[in-house]
């Protein structure tokens, strides 16, 4: 079995040697022109005058485009459930909807020329008065009509929440707020667009090839077949590359207008306004419980911001739906329209902010009833999905909790908050549960065996740094009984079979299943061919007992090399395709609740005088069905946990309420953890196999690591200090007033 092994990344050597070519680095089509986006410097209003003459006269400038001369564009078709496939009009009117919105594009011979000329575009605006302050506008919140992602209800209710809550002897009713956050992949949003006759070759850093193609085509109102997406390597996406943004649309405009290859990348600063932002949220959590900790009522009501013109609903209120048992339940969502950049999926949309709130509230309940937080969660473990009443496919939350507590030495946790001091440090332990829905989407993969006995896997699936190349190598190696070195995986091109790309933690399971099925079909073809071939050693044998290994097929004691079968019968090679179904077509999604689970444990030190919070160690134990590659899985989980740490303590995009701009828009000011913040972080995955998920038993884990991780840290801060901060991130000034008096 190659599946499950900690195989090194097959693309690793290329990447460390700098030979993995990213979107902005392609050069095959001759010297490109360089684009630079001019962003609005107001938050709302209208362009009243644009003078591009100085920019046009600037050295090297080939094109300055504004809303006056941008091509006509399609508008987003709201009936498409996942918005990444919708059109993305840019420069389509003089109206400005948020700070930084593109108001002009400059294209020049060099990047520096384009950037310098961009500063010469002279703009006048009639500014309006925008709404930028979430807290000040929450009373304008509305209940959205749309489903989340076209599939999930925004609100649900079971039983009678108010009555249940009011009758509960122990009640927690608190509000938690989470800030604006952004994905900040190392590779910025970038593309190179090459015109090729009427066609366009688009090298673009994107998570979903099919969505990129569809979005460009419907924006330009042209046939998607004319657009060829190439994205073999993506330097991280975290949701922000699920769709293409203005960088790609504008490069397409310029390449078509100039009939030359055009490159465009966002600067780090531009990423803050020109991609998507995780909405800020205010979450009310109510927990009503018996004195023994048993929940009778659980309510999670979330108000979040949305851009006024482009509704986005983060599935934050869905977090509690499958988490704990309680007869009376409620989840609800409101949106506060603001004139800020649009909300979009940021890694672990929903659970990331949702579990910060809910798992903090559970900690508050544990404290209120005087119970160990691990025990409290175990006590509220449901036997069936508490909202839908269907069984869980493969739920091991309690195993994660128990195993984590054991490995972490949880029993050393100080039972009383603010009771342990080691020198300068107030020491505390915290934990939180993790849950994340497991999703599935239609995906096709192709496997082709050549006459030399090597296999090629093809899919428009992407590898955004997660390890897709590697796991698909493993799946195909097992599927055809080949050593991994004889499998080559080819990804990220729109002429390959269509996948749903990387996102929602579904890429690995979707693609692996499709490739596994393709291998099955190919095996079938090969055995049938051999049986019917008089020249084959396997001629006439019963294919039922066929075994594939070491590059050979054997039936009984007789075997033949795959290469011989192929060379003799299919000298050009032979291929087969395999498919993964949509969730809506898979009865398991109707009959079972499919999730992944985990438990996070954190130990923090809080400086007794300055309130600086430093993580001492952190452990996550997870249940994700079967692991496809132990190493890439662990990397994903640890990366997620560190993200959660950042969400608890550091990350926040600050809005200037006067302009609607994000103020701290670079990575020196928008803080994420550095290595020194995350010295001892470990992730453990329980052995498993979820047979309801798919034939491989594997579920997604790219986002699970974040889910609950921040709450474990926040709960540890409470345990260390006795200070409960409900306004994330927990920066030191929020803890400082609650510190003990200073000692000599």
């Amino acid at each position, binding site marked *: 079995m190659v599946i499950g092994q900690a195989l090194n990344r097959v693309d690793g050597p290329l990447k460390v040697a700098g030979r993995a070519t990213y979107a902005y680095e392609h050069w095959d089509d001759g010297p490109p022109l360089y684009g630079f986006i001019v962003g609005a410097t107001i938050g709302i209003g209208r362009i009243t005058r644009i003078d591009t003459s100085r920019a046009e006269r600037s050295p*090297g400038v080939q094109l300055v485009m504004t809303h006056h001369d941008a091509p006509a564009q399609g508008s987003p078709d709201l009936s498409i459930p996942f918005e990444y496939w919708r059109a993305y009009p840019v420069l389509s009117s003089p109206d400005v909807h948020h700070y930084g919105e593109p108001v002009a594009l400059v294209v020049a011979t060099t990047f520096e020329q384009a950037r*310098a000329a961009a500063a010469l575009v002279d703009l006048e605006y009639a500014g309006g008065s925008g709404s930028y302050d979430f807290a000040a506008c929450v009373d304008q919140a509305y209940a959205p009509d749309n489903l989340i992602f076209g599939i999930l209800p925004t609100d649900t209710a079971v039983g009678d929440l108010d009555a249940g809550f009011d009758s509960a002897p122990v009640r927690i009713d608190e509000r938690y707020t989470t800030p604006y956050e952004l994905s900040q992949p190392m590779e910025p949003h970038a593309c190179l667009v090459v015109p090729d006759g009427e066609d366009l070759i688009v090298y673009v850093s994107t998570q979903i090839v099919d969505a990129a193609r569809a979005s460009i085509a419907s924006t330009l109102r042209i046939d998607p077949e004319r657009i060829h997406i190439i994205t073999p390597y993506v330097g991280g996406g975290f949701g922000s590359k699920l769709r293409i943004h203005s960088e790609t649309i504008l490069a397409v405009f310029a390449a078509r207008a100039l009939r030359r290859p055009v490159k465009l990348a966002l600067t780090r600063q531009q990423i803050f306004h020109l991609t998507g932002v995780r909405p800020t949220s205010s979450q009310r959590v109510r927990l009503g419980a018996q004195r023994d900790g048993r929940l009778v009522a659980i309510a999670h009501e979330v108000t979040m911001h949305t851009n006024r013109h482009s509704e986005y609903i983060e599935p934050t209120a869905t977090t509690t739906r499958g988490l704990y048992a309680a007869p009376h339940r409620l989840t609800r969502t409101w949106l506060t329209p603001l004139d800020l950049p649009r909300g979009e999926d940021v890694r672990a949309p929903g659970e990331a902010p949702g579990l910060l709130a809910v798992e903090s509230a559970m900690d508050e309940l544990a404290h209120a009833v005087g119970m160990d937080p691990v025990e409290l969660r175990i006590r509220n473990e449901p036997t069936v999905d508490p909202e839908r009443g269907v069984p869980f496919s493969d739920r091991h939350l309690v195993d994660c909790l128990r195993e984590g507590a054991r490995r972490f030495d949880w029993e050393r946790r100080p039972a009383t908050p603010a009771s342990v001091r080691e020198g300068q440090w107030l020491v505390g332990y915290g934990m939180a549960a993790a849950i994340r829905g497991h999703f599935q989407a239609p995906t096709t993969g192709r496997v082709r065996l050549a006459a030399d006995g090597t296999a090629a896997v093809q899919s428009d699936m992407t590898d955004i740094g997660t390890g897709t190349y590697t796991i698909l190598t493993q799946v195909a190696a097992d599927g055809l009984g080949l050593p991994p070195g004889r499998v080559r995986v080819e990804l990220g091109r729109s002429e390959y079979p269509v996948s749903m790309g990387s996102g929602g933690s579904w890429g690995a399971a979707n693609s692996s299943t499709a490739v596994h099925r393709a291998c099955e079909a190919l095996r079938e073809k090969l055995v049938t061919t051999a049986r019917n071939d008089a020249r084959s050693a396997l001629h006439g044998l019963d294919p039922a007992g066929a075994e594939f290994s070491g590059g050979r097929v054997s039936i009984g004691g007789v075997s033949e090399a795959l290469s011989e079968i192929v060379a003799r019968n299919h000298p050009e090679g032979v291929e087969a395709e395999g498919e993964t179904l949509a969730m809506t077509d898979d009865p398991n999604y109707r009959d079972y609740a499919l999730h992944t689970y985990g438990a996070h444990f954190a130990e923090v030190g809080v400086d007794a005088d*300055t309130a600086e919070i*430093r993580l001492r160690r952190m452990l996550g134990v997870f249940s994700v069905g079967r692991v496809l590659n132990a190493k890439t899985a662990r990397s994903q989980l640890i990366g997620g946990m560190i993200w959660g740490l950042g969400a608890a303590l550091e990350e926040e995009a600050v809005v200037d309420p006067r302009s609607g701009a994000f103020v701290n828009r670079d990575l020196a000011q928008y803080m994420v953890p*550095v290595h020194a913040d995350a010295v001892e972080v470990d992730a453990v995955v329980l052995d498993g196999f979820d047979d309801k998920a798919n034939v491989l038993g594997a579920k997604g884990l790219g986002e699970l690591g974040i889910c609950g991780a921040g709450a474990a840290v926040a709960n540890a801060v409470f345990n260390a200090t006795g200070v409960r901060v409900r306004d994330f991130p927990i920066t*030191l*000034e929020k803890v*400082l007033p609650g510190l003990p008096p*200073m000692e000599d």
Partner: protein
Amino acid sequence: MRSFTYERATDARAAVAAVSRPGAKFISGGTNLLDLMKLEVERPSHLVDISRLPLRGIEELPDGGVRIGAQAANSDTAADVLVRSRYPVLSQALVAGASGQLRNKASIGGNLLQRTRCPYFYDTAADCNKREPSSGCSAIGGFNRIHAILGASGACIATHPSDMAVAMAVLGAHVELLGADGSARRVAVTDFHRLPGDTPHVETVLEPREMITGVVLPPPPPGRQLYRKVRDRASYEFALVSVAVIVATERGVISGARVAFGGVAHKPWRSVEAEAALIGRPAAMATYRVAAEAAMRGAVGQGQNDFKIELAVRTLCRTLADAIQGR
């Protein structure tokens, strides 16, 4: 495209002569200047590269002091045996700054002259008196969590971000300058940076064509030295508040004290008020608290940075206690 010319200076005199061209600027490690040039906050038309001038030496002076060349790397200075043994507070402050890679490039002169980290200063679309005199100060009434609590003005509330300069302030360091006419002068590091007043764009007493050639540290005063930096993450982040102290005691009574703060003002903030409140008093938390409150007497918050006042008080108290107890 904003082009600029570049030359590499061959000696110090040639360097100051070369920088007299209009629009010319020195470049040392470039770790601050180049970032600002990319954002068009700094727009020199000519760069005079002084990074290879023979000003990297760290040498002992006859009086027991030490002279550090302006081009000595921050990392080399922090690791230097003389610095570590006599001026540990300086070594601690240096290693608390930036990252290993940056410290390898960053020079002593450049560190003193690094510009503020006020986000509006970096954003050419925002009003900022320091970048564009008379345009206004966006930080007042805006995002000002990291801004000054001491010595600010209605024109600018920015802080000077250097850690190193705070340590130099308690050490009584002098900055050596070479003028365009070849004349040399020395300025106390505490007089080198200016408060913003009405001219926040004028940050130091450096004349337009002067070059920093070195920093002179007098022999260390008696007492224990300690630098403490408070920040939002464990590394690679500027100080919210920092404190440098040198403190000596005799039989439980403070006999010598020097105190400076970083992250609180437009310059490294030496607090003579705190020093006066410490000397002759018992080495105890009550004394430290009185001294810290004396240091913060005129402190004013801007809203989001109000916490810095109490944070500075607590950080000074802790640093004094740790220094005195040898922690």
